[in-house]
């Protein structure tokens, strides 16, 4: 981030005048400075004379240290990068600067804006200039900044023979390899890299191949998502990628696809899907889209579904065949194909009505319907999905096919064969971690030792690095130049925010040197610049600057290809495969292998934020589990002991066994062929009966301190390794598995013990039809229907009046004075929230929230300021269904609710704090004065939402394994991690209560900014949308809206006028400023199992609803018009 200060040359007058200078550059350019420098540093002056600011600062760092220049200057990257939109006039200490960049990924780059404080990247935000994501990001992107400061990352390159290598020596490995293989045309040289969308890398690889044509360039991704493209290539003969436009889709059928959370492009898909579910009032309810999900795992997409069918992943081909047959017969498709498909689908046990009605609904909405197949499914399913989309007239409307650039890379299998044949004598492993995550049937660890000299370029000294001959430290993407493309091809930059913390080499530099690019041209900046010039078709500096500033290159997306998929091709596909569904049972299980919410494929294994953030569905932190269905659990005899209140019929049984709040998981043994893996079993409602779901990325044997579970006696890794089940042919599914229960018990840190809402009106749900009839259904639920907040004679006043005057209905108690011009509030739309966890990590990153470690999570002391509550509902009520009350739901609906401090206007936490540490400010924020807090914890007890978090230990200061040793324990290594801390937010010590502040630091920054602009005018109100809380900013579906509730024109006020707006526990008269928009489901009543009401609502109505007492006072279903009468 070196900035060029274009100050005019000092005039003669200046030179003789008083000694002022505006920047170090100017000082360095001052002739008097030269003289002084020579006197002061006779030996170093020659170096400084170059006038290079960085060199200058290096020399002068010590003397300028007190002025604060040395600290900020020493980490400046050398090439000039440009800030994103909000550029302060100069670097002002305390004012953050934002730069556009992007996070590299196998299929797509996620466009980012990175917040930096004095050249330290502290917070990742999405880049709103990329319309597809609208500023949204995911948890992985949010947490990636922590990896930059990982104290366990590789700091030095090293070779087995020579020991530690300098950066230059490490570069020499690549340069020398190129030189050595030029005569052999690259024969014997192989490179295994991660997949990438970077055009610069592709260009360099092409150059490498040109110069060393015999080199094997292979790419490997453990979470493979190439099937959709491979199927299209086979069908249409071109390299195409399907892009779905879910915002245009009214009916969506998902075949085992988790398009809101894990599929490539999920941020855009989630965002587009949510657009079809953003309903403000009941009049718009008819617009809502409908999602049919068929899946084996319980994914977040399944959680959003209006109809969810549990089916094994191995049954998807047969299911797709039957569904395609159904649809094609409606559209009059080829009879031959239908016959083939019906034959292929025989043997699959499925509710025919489900198929028919679903197909009919899709067909009725053709042109606005789409079928989405999961990337892990075999090619034939994708072929059938494309055929169905063609039949549904989806092409060009809800799905488009875009032309991808050609790539030329071998698979890991090809490379393995070459190594096996002894053809490779030097292997470069660029990134990835094949020893840990390569398909088990390749036995990479053994293979690698046969590959001659192995050079490993990696970020951590991991499993692959252990046996490599040379290890070369990699830079983080926040330290390196790069570029890439989003899913739809938009060209985005990767800018370094900081000079490499350690002596690393970037990927582009490594490949460039391998490709023999001249040393002076092999700098990241120059490489990217050259590619940009080619892609943008201009060498204009301004165009390049603009690209860096905005972070996206307009009109660079992939071109849409028109393709007609011939039915004959599909027939070939459909007929040629064995698609028949195998019967699954307890002794013939299928293992579905999915990326983990914590570690993805293992790469985030040493990232504390991701490890601690609970998995959205099973709520486990720090571990992965053998997720089994309740049906399988029953057959294995693994059900939990009934919990205490079952005799009374008031509590639903817990799915898993808990002892004093800790999940006691039985260890099970999974066996496929000769491969045996042991792991703790977790009962997960909603799974297909005989599918066992395993997540990747745990059980790392060589990892850092976060990935190591020090609770276990011999410091073993967290979780267990699933890669032994991953094969080259079938990376995400293993069949014919057996399971055996052992006697061992393993404790798991589960952050949510109880799965049922117990009929309480916490998450309020309605079906669209129901909602249209009873728009104010939310007011008919919960205690509020009997005892609404007490506004007295002000009941009918506007929301804006209520938030500023705080009427108490004649109560004598004094209330805080809300005199601020602007009153802050929040609205969370439960209908669009997918439960993706991004807000949890964004909040952690913004607010310096510490991780506490597995042991503390087991004790229930996680510190997240925002949490996602997950409830299952099956519509059963224990007292109504005595015989079923013991059951764990096999096929429930799931709902999520993000819960953070609600900033109650009449906050119960404030009245009980004896020291005035938590009080209201005039803007309606419930603020914490950390200095005042003595830690009585009374506030947390009195908080009905339990959102307050207490620092039981010095989590920031003390190593998580040394907490109980008190002052004798070791302190954290914070040399790097403290650089991530947001300087605008206090780092809390032990004994202090903390909680969500609505990102008060962002509010204050915006207010100060506005007041500065306003000067003496009255225009001091911050414009709506200027302040985005961290959770709001990250949310890809814009479920969270924050703003001024005293102004009726703001977005948040508009949201709160919705008829679905309600306060959780509103009857307590505490008047939370965060309110929720009720969740909606849009079932098709013709479908089997369709319910008049969502299941959670059924539970409420049966247990506490009005129906039970005769509807004499405003029964929601009897007389919607009486809604007013209630208040």
């Amino acid at each position, binding site marked *: 981030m070196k900035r060029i200060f274009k100050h005019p040359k000092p005039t003669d007058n200046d030179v003789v005048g008083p000694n002022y200078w505006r920047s170090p550059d100017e000082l360095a350019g001052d002739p008097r400075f030269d003289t002084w420098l020579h006197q002061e540093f006779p030996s170093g002056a020659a170096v400084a004379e170059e006038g290079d600011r960085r060199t200058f600062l290096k020399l002068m760092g010590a003397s300028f240290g007190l002025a604060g220049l040395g600290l900020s200057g020493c980490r400046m990257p050398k090439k000039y990068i440009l800030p994103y939109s909000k550029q302060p006039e100069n670097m002002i200490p305390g004012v953050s600067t934002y730069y556009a960049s992007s996070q590299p990924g196998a299929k797509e780059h996620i466009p980012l804006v990175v917040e930096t404080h004095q050249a330290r990247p502290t917070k990742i935000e999405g880049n709103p200039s990329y319309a597809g994501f609208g500023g949204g990001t995911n948890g992985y992107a949010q947490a990636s900044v922590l990896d930059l400061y990982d104290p366990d990352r590789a700091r030095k390159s090293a070779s087995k023979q020579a020991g530690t290598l300098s950066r230059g020596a490490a570069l020499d490995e690549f340069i020398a390899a190129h030189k050595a293989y030029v005569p052999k045309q690259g024969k014997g040289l192989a490179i295994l890299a991660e997949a990438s969308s970077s055009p610069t890398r592709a260009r360099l690889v092409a150059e490498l191949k040109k110069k060393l044509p015999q080199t094997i360039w292979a790419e490997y991704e453990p979470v493979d998502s190439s099937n959709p493209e491979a199927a299209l290539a086979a069908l249409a003969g071109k390299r195409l990628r399907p892009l779905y436009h879910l915002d245009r889709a009214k009916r969506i059928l998902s075949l085992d696809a988790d398009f809101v959370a894990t599929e490539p492009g999920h941020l855009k898909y989630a965002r587009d899907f949510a657009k079809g579910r953003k309903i403000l009032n009941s009049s718009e309810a008819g617009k809502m889209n409908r999602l049919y999900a068929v899946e084996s795992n319980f994914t977040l997409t399944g959680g959003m579904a209006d109809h969810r069918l549990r089916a094994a992943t191995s049954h998807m081909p047969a299911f797709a065949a039957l569904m395609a047959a159904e649809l094609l017969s409606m559209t009059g498709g080829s009879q031959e194909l239908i016959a083939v498909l019906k034959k292929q689908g025989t043997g699959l046990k499925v509710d025919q009505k489900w198929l028919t009605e679903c197909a009919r609904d899709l067909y009725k909405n053709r042109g606005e319907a789409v079928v989405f197949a999961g990337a892990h499914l075999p090619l034939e399913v994708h072929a059938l999905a494309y055929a169905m989309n063609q039949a549904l007239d989806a092409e060009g409307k809800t799905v488009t096919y875009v032309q991808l650039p050609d790539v030329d890379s071998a698979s890991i299998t090809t490379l393995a064969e070459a190594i096996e044949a002894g053809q490779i004598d030097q292997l470069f492993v660029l990134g990835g971690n094949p020893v840990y995550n390569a398909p088990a049937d390749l036995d990479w660890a053994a293979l690698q030792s046969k590959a001659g000299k192995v050079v490993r370029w990696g970020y951590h000294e991991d499993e692959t690095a252990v046996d490599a001959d040379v290890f070369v430290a990699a830079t983080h993407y926040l330290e390196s130049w790069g570029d890439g493309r989003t899913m739809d091809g938009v060209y985005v930059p990767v800018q370094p925010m900081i000079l490499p913390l350690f002596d690393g080499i970037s990927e582009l530099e490594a490949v460039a040197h391998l490709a023999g690019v001249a040393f002076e041209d092999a700098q990241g900046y120059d490489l990217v610049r050259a590619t940009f010039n080619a892609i943008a078709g201009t060498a204009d500096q301004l165009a390049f600057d603009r690209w860096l500033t905005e972070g996206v290159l307009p009109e660079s997306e992939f071109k849409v290809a028109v393709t007609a998929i011939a039915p004959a091709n599909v027939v070939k596909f459909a007929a040629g495969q064995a698609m028949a569904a195998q019967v699954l049972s307890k002794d013939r299980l299928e293992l579905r292998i999915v990326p983990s919410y914590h570690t993805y494929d293992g790469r985030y294994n040493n990232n504390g934020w991701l490890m601690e953030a609970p998995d959205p569905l099973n709520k486990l932190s720090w571990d992965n589990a053998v997720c089994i269905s309740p049906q399988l659990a029953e057959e294995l005899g693994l059900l939990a002991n009934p919990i205490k209140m079952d005799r009374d019929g008031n509590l639903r049984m817990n799915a898993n066994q808990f002892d004093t709040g800790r999940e006691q998981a039985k260890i099970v043994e999974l066996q496929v062929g000769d491969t045996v893996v042991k792991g703790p079993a977790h009962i997960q409602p909603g799974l297909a009966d005989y599918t066992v779901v395993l997540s990747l990325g745990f059980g790392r044997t060589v990892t850092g301190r976060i990935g190591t579970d020090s609770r276990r006696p011999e410091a073993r890794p967290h979780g267990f390794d699933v890669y032994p089940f991953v094969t080259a042919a079938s990376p995400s599914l293993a069949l014919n598995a057996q399971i055996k229960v052992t006697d061992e018990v393993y404790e798991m840190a589960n952050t949510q013990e109880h799965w049922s809402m117990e009929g309480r009106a916490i998450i309020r749900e309605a079906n669209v039809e129901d909602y249209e009839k009873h728009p104010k259904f939310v007011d008919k639920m919960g205690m509020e229907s009997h005892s609404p907040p007490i506004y007295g004679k002000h009941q009918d006043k506007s929301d804006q009046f209520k938030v500023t005057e705080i009427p108490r209905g004649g109560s004598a108690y004094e209330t805080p004075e809300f005199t601020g011009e602007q009153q802050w509030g929040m609205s969370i739309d439960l209908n669009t929230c997918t439960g993706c966890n991004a807000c949890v990590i964004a909040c952690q990153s913004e607010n310096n929230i510490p991780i506490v470690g597995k042991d503390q999570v087991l004790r229930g002391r996680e510190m997240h300021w925002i949490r996602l509550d997950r409830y299952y509902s099956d519509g059963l009520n224990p007292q109504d269904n005595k015989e079923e009350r013991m059951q764990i739901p096999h096929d429930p609906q799931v709902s999520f609710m993000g819960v953070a401090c609600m900033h109650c206007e009449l906050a119960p936490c404030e009245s009980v704090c004896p020291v005035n540490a938590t009080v209201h400010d005039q803007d309606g924020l419930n603020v914490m004065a950390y200095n005042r807090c003595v830690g009585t914890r009374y506030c947390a*007890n009195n908080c009905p939402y339990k959102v307050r978090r207490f620092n039981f230990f010095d989590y920031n200061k003390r190593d998580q394994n040394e907490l109980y040793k008190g002052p004798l324990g070791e302190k954290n290594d914070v040399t790097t991690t403290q650089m991530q801390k947001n300087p605008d937010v206090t780092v809390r010590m*032990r*004994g202090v209560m903390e909680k969500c502040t609505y990102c008060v630091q962002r509010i204050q920054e915006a207010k100060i900014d506005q007041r500065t602009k306003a000067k003496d005018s009255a225009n001091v109100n911050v414009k709506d949308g200027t302040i985005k809380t961290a959770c709001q900013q990250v949310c890809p579906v814009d479920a969270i809206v924050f703003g001024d509730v005293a102004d009726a024109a703001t977005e948040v006020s508009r949201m709160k006028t919705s008829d679905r707006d309600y306060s959780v526990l509103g009857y307590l008269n505490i008047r939370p400023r965060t309110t929720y928009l009720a969740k909606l489901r849009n079932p098709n009543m013709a479908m089997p199992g369709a319910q008049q009401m969502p299941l959670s609502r059924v539970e409420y109505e049966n247990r506490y609803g009005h129906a039970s007492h005769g509807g004499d006072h405003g029964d929601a279903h009897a007389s919607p018009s009486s809604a007013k009468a209630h208040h």
Partner: protein
Amino acid sequence: MASAASDASIANPQVLNKVKPLDMPRRELVENKRDFHWVTEKICGIVEGKTPIWWWFLFACSIFLASFTGIGLVYLVASGVGVWGLANPVNWGWAIVNFVFWIGIGHAGTLISAILCLLRQKWRTSINRAAEAMTIFAVICAGIFPVFHTGRPWFALLPGYLLPAPNSNWIWPQFRSPLEWDVFAVSTYGTVSVLFWYMGMLPDLGVLRDRAKVLWRKYFYGILAMGWRNSNRHWRNYEMAYLLLAGLSTPLVLSVHTIVSFDFAASNLPGWHTTIFPPYFVAGAIFSGFGMVLTLMLPLRAVYGLHDLITQYHIDCMCKIILATGTMVGYAYAMEFFIAWYGANPYEGFAFVNRAFGQYAWAYWIMISCNVISPQLFWFKWIRERHWLVWIICGFVNCGMWFERFVITCTSLANDFLPSSWGYYSPTIVDIFTFFGTFGLFSTLFLLFIRFLPLMPIAEIKAVMPQADAHGDHGKGEHH
């Protein structure tokens, strides 16, 4: 002091012959026709005699036990509150339970000294001194917990946080918080109890001083006696001051536990937010206080041979108070359930059903059996006369009252409004040691008390003996 037999206010004295009123003499407060000298010798003898071996043994044990609290607190302050079993959602655990428990214990002393004094219940005289001492020691034990349960006790103790003092930012404590009320209630109670106890001891300290044969005793008791000379003027001032302090303490007996109950009642948590708490807590406190008085006095009576001073009559009286307050507490338990049902608030209803049948049901049923069922045995005279049984039942009462506070504090917190945040609280070894250590601290202080200070008010006992009554021999059925 009108005599019934000779009462002129009865219109027709002959009626007495007709109805033949039963001759029911007041039971003697000091049995076996002991004289004043015996009383002085007996009580002073405890202090003046040779230190018994058992005392040394118990004292060593107590100090050892008390060190658990010390070690526990040092570890706590050095490491963080995390060494206890607390977590979200149960942010108050054993510390607050122990605080309420000890404060409750401390109730009997002042009740006996103040309320029974005002009500002229003369049987209080032989037990009030020890009960008052017990109160003070219990308040000391109680006071430890609210201070050390805070996350940053070094600030909690600093004026300007919990103690009102103007600081540089002119921030005062938050006077709406029940915890702030606790600060005032407990400190006032502690102060008045110490004053009352010490002032009541002055005449006896004078006696000990006068009898002292060793120099250090002369100085020790001489300073403590503050120049008490038994003059009429001293006695007049003493009696007036005693009466005033009794009057001052009486509302405190009710207010302290009322305010402690506000810690819960003023919150909005189902199971805490209950208007019945103040009377129910006071009843419970007296209940546990008397339990503790009997627990302490029965062994003392046996060891020191105080049978003539603490008579069966005294024991009966205390058992009956335990029976009455135990029944009140039982009524309160029932009423809580009734109101939860009658209020038709599902959260409230759940909280109470959950107490009885939920994950902490074991604690609830311990509480019910100890607090409601066991004192009912005191209906039977046979049981009241079996002192080892009385002692065991009093142990149950104390145990039950600890569990009552545990049930109220923890079950309500563990399962509150949102099932997503439900949890389970269990103590750690540090919690357990710190609590049991306070019994050591309590016994240490109590052992020092019986060794160095007069266990019973000599002067007051003499005042309720027949010899003190100039008209003592006037007919039978005389009311004292």
